[in-house]
C-alpha cells in the first residue's frame, strides 16, 4: 500500500498541507463572492438614460471590488428625495450612500461621514471644484459630501438666436461662438443690454421667460442677478445686511424694472413654465439647463434648431451663473464607509463623470473646473455647438452662483426655500409696496430666521 512507508506524523503533515493548498486554491472562488452589500440611493434622473449610466458604473465598480452594490433611484418629484433623507436621518438607518440636493449636506452635516480624504485625492488629481460647490459641501472646514456629477446643473441663458437678432439686434451666436473665444459684443453682454433686449422682445410679443415665483429657477436666476450687483442679504457670519445696503437696493430696483418686461404671470410660474414658454415659441430667452432645448428637439425641432446657450449677462461685480448641484454623501451610521468612499471616488473620476454627462446629453455638470471640456458639449446639436457654452469656460469669466450665498448654509437654505429674494421684488412690482417697505419686510423675515438658530 502506498501508506506502508509513511509514519503517522507524515500522514498528518501531508493532510495539513493538503488542507492549506486546498484552501489557497479555492480562495479566489471564495473571495469572488461579494460579502459586502452597499446600498445606494441616487437621484432619479430626468433623462431616462442617466439612471442607466449610474447603474452600469456601480455594477462595474462592484464587480471589480467584489462588492454587491444595490442601487435605488429616488425621485425629486413631490420632494420624495427630501422626505427620504428626513426619514433616514430620523431613524438613523437606510442607505449607505445617498444623493443630497443642494442644501441638504449643510442641513445634515453632523450626520454625514467626513470625506476630506476622498476630496483630497480628487482635487489633487483634477484640481479645485467651483466655489459654489465648496460653499455647499464643505461645512465648518470639512467636506461632508462630494459634489456629484449626476443631477448637477447650471442655468445659463438659452436664447432663440433668430428672435434675439430680429427684435433686439443682437447676434448672440457671433457674440458667444462654439469655441473658446469671445465674439464681437461679448463685452457688452451685461444686465443693461439685457434690459434693453427684454424691453424690445416684450414689445415684439416674445418676452423673456424668467420666472419670478418661489420655485428654484426663479430663486436661482434672481440670486445670480443679485450676486452680479454685489448684493447679499446676509454676510458669512449670519448678520442680516439688508438695511442701508445700497447694492441690494440697486439690484432690487433693477429687478423691478426688468419684471415690467416679463410676461405678467411670471409670479406664478413653476420650473416648467419657462421651458414651455421657450418650446412653444412664445419666448426669446430663458435661463435653464439644456433640458428645455432637449425637449424642444423632440417636440418642436423647428424651435430647437434656433436655440443657442450663452453665458448669463454680467453685472457691475462680475458674471454669475446659477448653479444647482447634487451631492453624494455617506451617512455616519453606515457600516460600509470604506467601500462607500471608494465607490464615490470612482464615480467622480473623469471617465465616470464623462459617461454620466454623455448619457444625460450634456445635462450633468461635473464639479471640477478641469472637466468642463467634455466633447459632448461641442458635438450636441442641432445646431451643432448649441450647448458649447453650457459649462463654465475660462473665456466666460464667470463664477458659479448659489442664491443666498455667502450666508451660513443653515440660514441660507431657509431664505432660499422661502424664496425671499423673489418675494422682495414681487412685493414691490406686484404688491404695490415701496422698496423700503419691502426691504423692511425682508429684514424682519431674515432676522426671524437667524433668531431661530
Amino acid at each position, binding site marked *: 500500500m502506498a501508506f506502508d512507508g509513511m509514519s503517522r506524523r507524515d500522514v498528518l503533515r501531508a493532510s495539513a498541507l493538503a488542507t492549506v493548498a486546498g484552501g489557497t486554491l479555492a480562495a479566489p472562488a471564495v473571495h469572488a463572492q461579494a460579502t459586502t452589500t452597499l446600498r445606494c440611493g441616487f437621484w432619479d434622473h430626468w433623462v431616462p438614460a442617466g439612471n442607466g449610466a449610474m447603474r452600469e458604473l456601480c455594477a462595474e465598480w462592484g464587480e471589480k471590488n467584489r462588492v454587491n452594490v444595490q442601487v435605488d433611484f429616488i425621485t425629486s418629484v413631490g420632494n420624495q428625495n427630501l422626505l427620504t433623507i428626513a426619514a433616514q436621518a430620523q431613524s438613523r438607518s437606510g442607505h449607505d450612500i445617498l444623493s443630497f440636493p443642494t442644501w441638504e449636506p449643510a442641513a445634515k452635516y*453632523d450626520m454625514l461621514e467626513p470625506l476630506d480624504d476622498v476630496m483630497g485625492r480628487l482635487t489633487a488629481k483634477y484640481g479645485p471644484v467651483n466655489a459654489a460647490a465648496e460653499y455647499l459641501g464643505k461645512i465648518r472646514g470639512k467636506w461632508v459630501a462630494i459634489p456629484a456629477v449626476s443631477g448637477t446643473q447650471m442655468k445659463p441663458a438659452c436664447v432663440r438666436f433668430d428672435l434675439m437678432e430680429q427684435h433686439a439686434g443682437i447676434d448672440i451666436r457671433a457674440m458667444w461662438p462654439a469655441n473658446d473665444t469671445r465674439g464681437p459684443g461679448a463685452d457688452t453682454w451685461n444686465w443693461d443690454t439685457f434690459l434693453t433686449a427684454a424691453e424690445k422682445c416684450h414689445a415684439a410679443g416674445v418676452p423673456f421667460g424668467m420666472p419670478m415665483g418661489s420655485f428654484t429657477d426663479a430663486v436661482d436666476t434672481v440670486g445670480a442677478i443679485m450676486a452680479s450687483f454685489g448684493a447679499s442679504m446676509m454676510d458669512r457670519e449670519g448678520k442680516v445686511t439688508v438695511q442701508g445696503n445700497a447694492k441690494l437696493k440697486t439690484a432690487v430696483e433693477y429687478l423691478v424694472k426688468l419684471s415690467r418686461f416679463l410676461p405678467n404671470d411670471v409670479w406664478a410660474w413653476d420650473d416648467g413654465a419657462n421651458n414651455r414658454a421657450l418650446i*412653444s415659441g412664445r419666448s426669446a430667452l430663458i435661463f435653464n439647463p439644456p433640458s428645455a432645448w432637449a425637449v424642444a428637439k423632440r417636440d418642436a425641432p423647428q424651435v430647437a434648431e434656433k436655440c443657442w446657450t450663452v453665458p448669463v449677462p454680467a453685472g457691475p461685480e462680475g458674471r454669475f451663473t446659477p448653479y444647482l448641484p447634487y451631492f453624494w454623501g455617506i451617512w455616519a451610521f453606515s457600516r460600509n464607509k470604506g467601500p462607500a468612499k471608494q465607490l464615490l471616488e470612482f464615480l467622480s473620476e473623469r471617465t465616470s463623470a464623462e459617461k454620466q454627462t454623455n448619457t444625460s446629453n450634456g445635462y450633468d455638470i461635473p464639479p471640477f473646473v478641469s472637466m468642463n471640456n467634455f466633447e459632448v458639449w461641442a458635438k450636441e446639436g442641432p445646431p451643432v455647438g448649441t450647448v458649447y457654452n453650457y459649462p463654465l469656460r475660462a473665456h466666460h469669466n464667470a463664477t458659479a452662483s448659489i442664491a443666498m450665498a455667502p450666508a451660513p448654509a443653515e440660514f441660507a437654505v431657509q431664505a432660499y426655500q422661502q424664496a425671499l429674494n423673489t418675494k422682495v421684488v414681487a412685493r414691490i412690482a*406686484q404688491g404695490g409696496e415701496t422698496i423700503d417697505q419691502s426691504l423692511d419686510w425682508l429684514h424682519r423675515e431674515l432676522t426671524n430666521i437667524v433668531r431661530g438658530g
Partner: protein
Amino acid sequence: MVADGSHALGGMASRDRGRANAMQRFARRRSTIAFLMTLPLLAIIVGLVAYPAAYAIYLSTLNRRMTAFAGTLNFELLFESDTFWMVAFQSCFFAITAVVLKASIGFWLAHMLHHIPDKGQRKWRGMLLVPWVIPPALSTLGWWWMFDPSYSSINWLLAVISVPEVPWLGHHWWARIAIIMVNVWIGAPFFMIMYLAALKSVPEQLYEAAMIDGASSFQRLRYVTLPMMANIISITVLFSLIVTFANYDIVRVLTNGGPRDLTHVFASYAFQVGILSGNIPRGAAVSLFMFPILALCAFFVLRSVTRRNKEQM
C-alpha cells in the same frame, strides 16, 4: 392521607381549581373582556394618533438642529413672523369659505336628487360622485392645466366670448378663488351624499302633516327638514372643516403657496418650513397650530349635537 397519596393530589388539584377559578373569574369580568376587545383600537390610537401628536409637540420644543431643548422659542418666532399670521388668516378663510360653499352646494344637490325618481337618481348620483372619487392630486393636476398661467384652457374659452384673460394663479385673490373652487368641486359630492341619506330618513308623514297645516315649501324646509338634518349637518361640517383645514395637495399642486405666500395654508407652510427649509421643529410648531383651532370647533359642534340629542330624548 391514604397510602397512595390521593389526598395530597386531591388537595393540589383543588388548589389549582381555586387558582383557575380566580383567573376565569378575572377573564369573565365584563370590564376585562371590554378592555381586551378594545385593545387593538387602543393600540392603533396610541400608535397612530397619540404618539405622533406627542412626538410633534416634542419636536416643536427643540432647536433647529434638534440637538437642544428650546422651550417655546419656535412658537414665539412664529408669532413674530408676518408670513405666519398671513398663513393663519388664509387657512381660516380657505377652510370656512370652502366648507360653507361645499355644504350649500351639497345641500342643494341633495334636494335636487331627492326629487328625481329612484331609477334616474342612481345615474345622477354616480356621476355627481366622480369628483370625490378621483384622487385629489390627480384631479388638481387637471385643474392646474386649466388654470395654467400661460396656456389656461378656461381663459381660452373666455376669450371666445371676448372676456379678458384671468390671472388664475398669478394674482393672489384669483389664486385663492381657484384653490377654493377646486376644493369645493372635490368636496361637495361628499356633502351631497350625506345629506341625501339624511333626507331619505326624514319621515314622509312630517311633510304631509306640515302640508295639511298649510306650511309653504320654505317653511317645510325651515321647520321640518333642517331640524331633522341638524345633527348630520353639524357632523359633516365638522368633519369637512378638519379635512379642509389640513388640506395640502391642492395648494401644493396649484400654487405652491404663491404668489408671495398669499395662498399658503398651515399644512403647505409647515411642509415648506419643516421639510424644504430643513427646520423640522418650526414646521412641527406650524402644524400644531391647527390643533387648538380644530379642537375648539369640535368642542362646540359636538356639544350642540349632544344638546340636541338630549332634547329629542
